[in-house]
């Protein structure tokens, strides 16, 4: 295994018991539900000048684990690679290098399970948009599509679709025959969730699932997600740019910047004691809810650079207040900051050569 985020937390008693009963469980409670090893994905485009090809290094060597029954939050800004990571996790894109291990079995290899098999247990909830639901299908048809392709009969698929619509709070009698354009944003998002749940997944990837909703609706959907997780014994990977929401819903948090993991750890450690300068800047960029205590200086200047030509060494050094020569030459590895808390920063790594680091 990589020397990255090595962590196993035992799920709580109730989840453990539920996991023992799940006939699909292979690895047992200590086996992480998902291990991502050194995922890399570059996109190549033809450049605008003759002969120049542009390589977008969207995800560059990212490793992490998701334990059974937990919620892993992934935060970052545009260009950090979290959306690409989501699509890698769910099999929509194949990584250039790296591997995915689901419940102990490698995905896509001859010895392990196929992507299609994995997709029976891993599903994705998309961000609400007009394009997230097929405008020409009724809600029931949209939700029943998954069970149909899994081999259920038309009737069984339809029954499952109605059951799952009821589960997310949309009464089938009223909603099954409706079309997406007749729904509000919050309702559409519930359908997105239902569609994912219809496949009876064990792991749900939520890619900006609440970002497009009004705040009051967002709170409703977050409550729903928490309830569903408890009731159905799910594991979540929650991807968002909204730090407050991630704090609310996650057990552990991973911070990404320009295709790399910069910090990962239990949620309270990350929020109360961030060890990476980018995490600190991100946390202090949140608008304060107190009009009497307004920010006077922005914690970070400039825009996030594009992943086309990332800086050498540490990718954050161009905007970092602590940058030193060693940051340009050596890429900092993820080092332990406490039990289960890791950060990729020379200033927080003993013996790195950075003036702020311990010798």
């Amino acid at each position, binding site marked *: 295994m990589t020397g990255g985020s090595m962590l196993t937390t035992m799920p709580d008693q109730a989840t453990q018991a539920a996991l023992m009963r799940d006939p699909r469980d292979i690895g047992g409670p200590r086996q992480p539900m998902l291990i991502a090893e050194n995922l890399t994905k570059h996109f190549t485009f033809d450049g605008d000048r003759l002969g120049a090809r542009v390589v977008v290094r969207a995800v560059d060597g990212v490793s992490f684990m998701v334990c059974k029954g937990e919620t892993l939050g992934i935060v970052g*800004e545009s260009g950090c690679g979290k959306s690409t990571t989501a699509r890698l996790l769910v099999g929509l894109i194949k990584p250039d290098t790296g591997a995915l291990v689901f419940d102990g079995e490698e995905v896509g290899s001859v010895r392990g399970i196929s992507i299609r098999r994995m997709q029976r247990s891993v599903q994705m909830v998309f961000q609400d948009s007009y394009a997230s639901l097929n405008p020409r299908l009724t809600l029931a048809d949209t939700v029943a599509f998954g069970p149909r392709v899994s081999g259920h009969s038309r009737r069984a698929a339809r029954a499952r679709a109605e059951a799952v619509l009821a589960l997310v709070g949309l009464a089938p009698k009223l909603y099954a025959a409706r079309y997406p354009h007749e729904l*509000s944003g919050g*309702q559409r998002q519930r359908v997105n969730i239902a569609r994912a749940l219809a496949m009876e997944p064990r792991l749900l990837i939520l890619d900006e699932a609440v970002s497009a909703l009004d705040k009051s609706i967002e709170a409703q959907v977050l409550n729903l997600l928490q309830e569903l997780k408890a009731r159905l014994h799910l594991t979540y990977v929650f991807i968002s740019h909204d730090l407050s929401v991630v704090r609310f819903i996650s057990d552990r948090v991973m911070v990404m910047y320009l295709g790399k993991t910069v910090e990962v750890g239990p949620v309270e450690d990350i929020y109360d004691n961030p060890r990476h300068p980018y995490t600190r800047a991100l946390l202090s960029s949140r608008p304060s809810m107190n009009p009497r205590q307004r920010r006077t200086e922005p914690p970070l200047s400039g825009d996030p650079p594009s992943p086309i030509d990332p800086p050498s060494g540490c990718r954050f050094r161009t905007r970092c207040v602590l940058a030193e020569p060693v940051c340009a030459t050596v890429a900092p590895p993820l080092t332990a900051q406490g039990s289960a808390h890791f950060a990729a920063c020379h200033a927080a790594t003993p013996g790195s050569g950075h003036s702020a680091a311990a010798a």
Partner: protein
Amino acid sequence: MGVTQMMADARPGGISGTPAALVEVRDLTLRLLSRDMDVSLLHGVSFTLHQGEVLCLVGESGSGKTVTLRALMRLLPPTANIGGNIRIAGIDVGSLTPRQMIGIRGSLVAMIFQEPATALDPTFTIGQQIAETVRVHDRVSHSAARGRALELLELVQIPSARRRLDAYPHELSGGLRQRAMIALALSCRPKLLLADEPTTALDATVQIQVLLLLRRLQREFGMAIIFVTHDVGVACEIADQLAVMYAGRLVESGPVEEVIAAPAHPYTAGLLRSVVHAQSRGTRLEPIPGAPPDLTALPRGCGFAPRCGYVRPECTERMPELLAVSPTRSARCLLVTSGERPRAPPMPF
């Protein structure tokens, strides 16, 4: 008569010198009438804004906050019927001809949008766009306009401004495009800046930069800003006055610290309670039940009544008036008459 003449005559202070409001909106109504639909988006919105003040219009989808802003600049589709009275710097905006309207856009009132990509012309460099606006309004030479464009880009803290003058919008990142749009809006020194969710599409670290920039520019220029947002946190960072809208009406207004600390309208209280923050972890969130209303089928009486935890029989009979909670605050709720306040969330002060 020419708009310049009108503006020269119309000083916010008026002839007698008492500080009159920069923006006075009375009973603004808006109806969209077309072959397929007939819906009222605004039902009598009134507010006042003084020189140098920042007003935040806060609301969710369907509240009417965006169309209120657009009505001030008359940037609405032809199917829109506007009623009521809008005065900016004493000029009655509703009575202006389209030509006069073009005259005040940019010079008296300017607007910045959520998506700079759609507001900036992709076929011209940002330097060209700013210079053209300057020349049209101030009638100066090419080189003087270009010089002014450079000044503006430096003012909005675009690095390597001289080089960026010749950049096309698509060559800039999101944050820089937004700054370029602000530069374009400020090019003719407007007295009033209308901001339609300009930071919603930006990353957190860029959003705070743009907010602070707007605050600084507002102080330097003495501009008034009307800032539309759905994010209460953003309002806390930038607003002097807060106005909460729901279903096409103003339901609460007042100084931002007072409204946040002790909201008078149940919707405002519910909105503040819906905000997810540190203490929420491990608890069940308390969202406002139900969903934003269907504007084509508004209930009789208070628009918020179906979702309100403090609803009484009188609420569904008549729409409450905007009642004074204090000399500086008002709320459209019957709770005000009985002196009660809705339960406010514990703010992390």
